[in-house]
């Protein structure tokens, strides 16, 4: 079943074309990886889906509902969650508060009720704290729950950001380079989390990643962008054999080192 449909999407900044004629369907419950060289438009595509960019042409729909012109905070309410390439956590807040803010769309307390606190707001905070603690358990970050995020090492920050997106209880999770700058162990942990999120929580995952080993290993399907256009789509094996993709990554010299392109497994 198609959950997110991108139809003929185009994005221009002045004379610069970031995306052109992108058509892409994301099926419910799958892990879809978007790959492509630097500047191919992967993050731009994600920004269009989460609403930070307004596409110049084309249409986006989520569960059959047209979301092309919906502002970001309303898309969040539909269950579209994301992480960012350069960690965009609330650095002055604790891990707990970051995750609690992830539940912003589920909380009800108004200004006055929050200021009075005792009664409804307290009950609500405790109830949502439980949900947040589940995620803290899941991501194995119990020890740092009261730490201020800005003081945490990079690997933990990436994990907290994933936790914040999970706290939202999303239906689709957009991950922008969740493993950038990580060592092998951290990548393995992250890959495990992504697979668990996908299987146990039944969340659709759209993932941008440069590590081909990871991409080919965990994704159900792969879409390839180059210069703002989609040049290939399919299962990891299909994409790996696609000549256009090989050309985009390795240049014209045919047949050079398929091994380096995730074929080593």
């Amino acid at each position: 079943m198609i959950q997110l449909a991108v139809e003929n999407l185009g994005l221009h900044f002045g004379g610069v074309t970031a995306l052109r004629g992108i058509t892409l369907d994301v099926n419910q419950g799958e892990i879809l990886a978007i790959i492509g060289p630097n500047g191919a438009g992967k993050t731009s595509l994600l920004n269009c889906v989460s609403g930070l960019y307004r596409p110049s042409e084309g249409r986006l729909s989520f569960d059959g509902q047209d979301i092309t012109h919906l502002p970001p905070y309303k898309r969040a309410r539909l269950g579209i969650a994301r992480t960012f390439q350069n960690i965009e956590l609330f650095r002055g807040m604790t891990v707990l508060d970051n995750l609690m803010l992830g539940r912003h769309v589920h909380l009800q307390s108004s200004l006055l009720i929050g200021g009075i606190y005792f009664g409804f707001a307290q009950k609500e905070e405790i109830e949502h704290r439980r949900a947040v603690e589940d995620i803290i358990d899941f991501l194995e970050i119990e020890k740092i729950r009261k730490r201020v995020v800005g003081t945490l090492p990079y690997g933990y920050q990436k994990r907290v950001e994933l936790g914040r997106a999970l706290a939202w209880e999303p239906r689709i999770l957009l991950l922008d380079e969740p493993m950038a700058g990580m060592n092998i162990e951290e990548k393995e942990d992250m890959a495990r989390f992504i697979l668990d999120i996908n299987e146990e929580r039944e969340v659709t995952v759209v993932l941008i990643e440069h590590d081909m080993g990871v991409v080919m290993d965990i994704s159900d399907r792969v879409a390839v962008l180059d210069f703002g256009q989609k040049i290939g789509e399919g299962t990891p094996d299909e994409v790996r054999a696609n000549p256009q993709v090989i050309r985009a990554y390795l240049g014209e010299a045919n047949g050079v080192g398929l091994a380096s392109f995730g074929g080593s497994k």
Partner: protein
Amino acid sequence: MIECGVFKRTYEEDMAFRHTALARWRIYLLLLAVVVFPFVASEYYVGIANLIGIAIIGALGLNILTGFTGQISVGQGAFLGVGAYTSAILAIRLGLPFWLALPGAGLVTALVGSVFGIPSLRLKGLYLVIATLAGQVIIEWTIGHWVDLTGGSQGMTNIPSPAIGPLTFASRTSYYYLTYAIVLAATVFASNLFRSKVGRAFVAVRDRDIAAEAMGVHLFRYKILAFAVSSFYVGVAGSLWAHYLNMISPEHFTVGVSIEYLAMIIIGGLGTVSGSIFGAIFMTLLPVILRELTGPLSAMLPITQVFNALREGIFGIVIIVFLIYEPHGLAKIWRNIKDYFRLWPFSY
């Protein structure tokens, strides 16, 4: 860092402000001290305490906007003026009692603050500073020139003291209790706000507005809300000021006052409730202490003539020293002291 022997069994206990008996007793003692103060202090010092109380409410308001939500405002002086004048006009021209004029002043200031907060959706940092400065100038000019309503540069006099039936809050001591009851409510409300949904969203807007928006925080609504809450506090402070001095004039609400309040929250600690209190105490006491020092010193030095310049100069130096050595302000220093004694004498 947690002391040994402190066990939390429920989330409720974990989310409480005070975790230990010591911390609770510190609060009880503080409250007791506030209640007892007028009995032991002279009339003069009770008067100063009243000014501190009013400054605390104003500083809390500014800190909600600037420290917690990250929207820098130099319109504080003007918003105080809006509160003071609204309250005075409601009390004198419409004959409303103080108990209606006070919330009225808060609401009108909140409305005015929200209007001047609209540019914040597009403007950040220095650009917002200039926009709020424009607000300050516009409001100051309006107060000075709308003579029919505000009395122009003459100001307004005979603003009635608050009263319940035969009981009036005209004396310093009675006004003290009124002020500090409101200070208590304002402090508790602000503290609670920042451990629930709306306050958390304010802080998120400060730290990373783009991420906050992607997570479902309606930026425009929350920024305007921050301006409104902040201005409500400032309006209440202005109203208390008007009914305390019984007279107001435009020079009480200049851009200099705005700067003074900014200094308060910087010295006290941006983005902390306790910082607003420390800052208000510090900035109100500093000139008092300087004045008392200049008395004996003037016998030796020709210091009285330069007192005003000295005061401004020392303000400036103090702010610079804080920015360099303790950017998180007095609140952070207090936290360091508490942390030191928490594990004392075995702090390893």
